[in-house]
């Protein structure tokens, strides 16, 4: 069990990082988008390892299903595939910042005592997640509703923005 998880983690991590790097590096936008889908999938896999079954499903549905499609639509609508995805003038500084950020966070992660609990929590999580979301006293009912309103607003906003005048 332990080793199985470890093996799948390393594989998933390698795929994830590689596909993410491909998104950043590839000049062809369309391929970049496809690698993004791959990245999203591997994230879903990580969620599975972490025992978040509901989230893994949601990840596939929302990211792979919806967002990736949206992005591909956008790529096609903007017809910028030919020009590709060149890097800007900040690439060197951006690289430095990214690296520094990585080093800093890694330092923090390594040097912090997380009090992690290694026992595996109960599965499946779907019903307990629903409990956590909607339970009366400590629930997230109001933020949940607000998130719904936010989505609505985003949809209306998108329609207004792209509507042909």
């Amino acid at each position: 069990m332990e080793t199985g998880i470890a093996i799948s983690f390393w594989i998933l991590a390698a795929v994830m990082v590689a596909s993410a790097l491909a998104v950043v590096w590839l000049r062809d936008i369309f391929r970049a988008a496809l690698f993004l889908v791959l990245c999203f999938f591997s994230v879903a896999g990580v969620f599975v390892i972490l025992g978040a079954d509901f989230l893994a499903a949601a990840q596939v549905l929302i990211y792979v299903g919806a967002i990736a499609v949206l992005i591909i639509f956008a790529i096609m609508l903007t017809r910028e595939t030919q020009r590709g995805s060149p890097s800007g003038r900040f690439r060197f500084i951006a690289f430095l910042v990214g690296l520094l950020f990585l080093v800093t966070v890694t330092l923090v992660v390594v040097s912090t005592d997380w009090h992690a609990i290694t026992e595996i929590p109960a599965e499946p999580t779907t019903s307990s997640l629903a409990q956590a979301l909607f339970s009366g006293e400590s629930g997230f009912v109001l933020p949940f509703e607000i998130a719904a309103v936010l989505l609505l607003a985003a949809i209306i906003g998108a329609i207004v923005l792209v509507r042909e005048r």
Partner: protein
Amino acid sequence: MAVGLEHFLILSAVLFSIGLYGALAKRNAVVILMCIEIMLNAVNIAMVAFSRYGHLLTGQVFAIFIMVVAAAEVVVGLALVIAIYRSRETVDVERIDLMKW
């Protein structure tokens, strides 16, 4: 070697840094949006990892909210990209500097 919280967090940090580099360095607005999605995913990994190793479902709840917001963001962001593309015939962020004084 057992996989612990630190592994997930570092993975999340690597993913985030890659996304960050992309968001800051790329010129195509759509690619920038894609990189932002990568960053959000990285955060989600961290959230879920904390949830798993802290036995607290709040992390997953947050991850759900992040997904919702990410969806909203990508919708509006792509709409903006398309709107700008329509008016300026480009999605190159270096040529979009309407916020300049």
